[in-house]
């Protein structure tokens, strides 16, 4: 379930889709509903967090993607992928550019598309348990929800290459050291810290805060468009379908990791 509330100028968007907020058409529709309804006049800040135990988000819904590719004839794959990617990019861009101070609270898994969602936030607060990674190359693709341009916006190319080309994950302390996370807090303290940060943001002049955000965090439009095309091309190859099949059919508690 995905729900939200607005209290004293601070929105709280709670992601609660089991097992770990996989991003597929259901999550996408819920995020679109939120964005259509968000009142940017009354609110000053937005806190995005997960209410599921496993973490912030495990990324794209690979089971849904596998079924979608399996059931459609190959000649329809490009259009279907493009339709989904255009939709998800629109959601990510709208979140990124919201005229509110946005704060992501991360615990546990923050992988792939979930990491890409986190990267739309202005401020990331990570609990000790947080783990960030882009496992996409293990599936024969690259991040496709805008993750590479947004990661490059925040951290150095050397770190971006290490994360992408090895698929390895990093903890909250490392994420803070490289400038991805601004606050690291004990497990269970993320929401309190985020609310305190959000309340601080509500004290400032709105126009100054909005101008600061626009100036400091421009949307990397050209790179986002390039990433889409790379993703759509790579995702049509048999290597992805084979990797998804292995992942979906595995009942090993250790995830499929080439």
């Amino acid at each position, binding site marked *: 379930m995905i729900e939200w509330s607005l209290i004293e100028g601070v929105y709280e968007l709670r992601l609660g889709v089991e097992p770990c907020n996989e991003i597929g058409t259901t999550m996408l529709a819920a995020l679109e509903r939120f964005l259509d309804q968000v009142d940017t006049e009354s609110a000053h800040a937005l806190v995005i967090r997960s209410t599921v135990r*496993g*973490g912030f988000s495990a990324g794209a819904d690979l089971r849904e993607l596998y079924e979608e590719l399996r059931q459609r004839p190959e000649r329809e794959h490009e259009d279907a992928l493009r339709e989904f990617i255009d939709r998800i990019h629109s959601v990510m861009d709208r979140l990124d550019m919201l005229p509110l101070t946005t704060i992501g609270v991360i615990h546990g898994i923050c992988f792939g598309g979930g990491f890409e969602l986190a990267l739309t936030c202005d401020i990331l607060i990570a609990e*000790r348990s947080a*783990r960030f990674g882009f496992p996409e190359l293990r599936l024969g693709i690259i991040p496709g929800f805008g993750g590479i341009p947004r990661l490059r916006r925040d951290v150095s190319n050397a770190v971006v290459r290490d994360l992408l080309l090895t698929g*390895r*994950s990093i903890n*909250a302390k490392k994420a803070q050291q490289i400038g991805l996370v601004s606050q690291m807090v004990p497990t269970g303290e993320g929401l309190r810290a985020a609310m305190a940060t959000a309340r601080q943001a509500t004290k400032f002049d709105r126009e100054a805060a909005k101008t600061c955000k626009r100036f400091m965090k421009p949307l990397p439009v050209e790179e986002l468009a390039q990433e889409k095309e790379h993703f759509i091309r790579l995702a049509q190859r048999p290597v992805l379908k084979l990797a998804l099949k292995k992942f979906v059919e595995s009942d090993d*508690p*250790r995830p499929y990791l080439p």
Partner: protein
Amino acid sequence: MTDVLDRLIRLAAKKYGADADALKADDDVFESLGIDSFAAAELMSELELEFDVEIPDYELQGVKTFGGLAAVIDKRR
């Protein structure tokens, strides 16, 4: 190495409510703690912070036991 194994077992047992004294070097980490892949990732973060090391995921491929995990941590210290 023994020190690492001992600390690793005690930390993991405390976190997941297992009996540290019953856990041995050859025990399977997932099975003996009853954890899934989400909890395993969380455990890796805790271990990295506890031992002040970075453990790339690819160094853990094929590692199943507490002893194997302790050896990987020990090499990174």
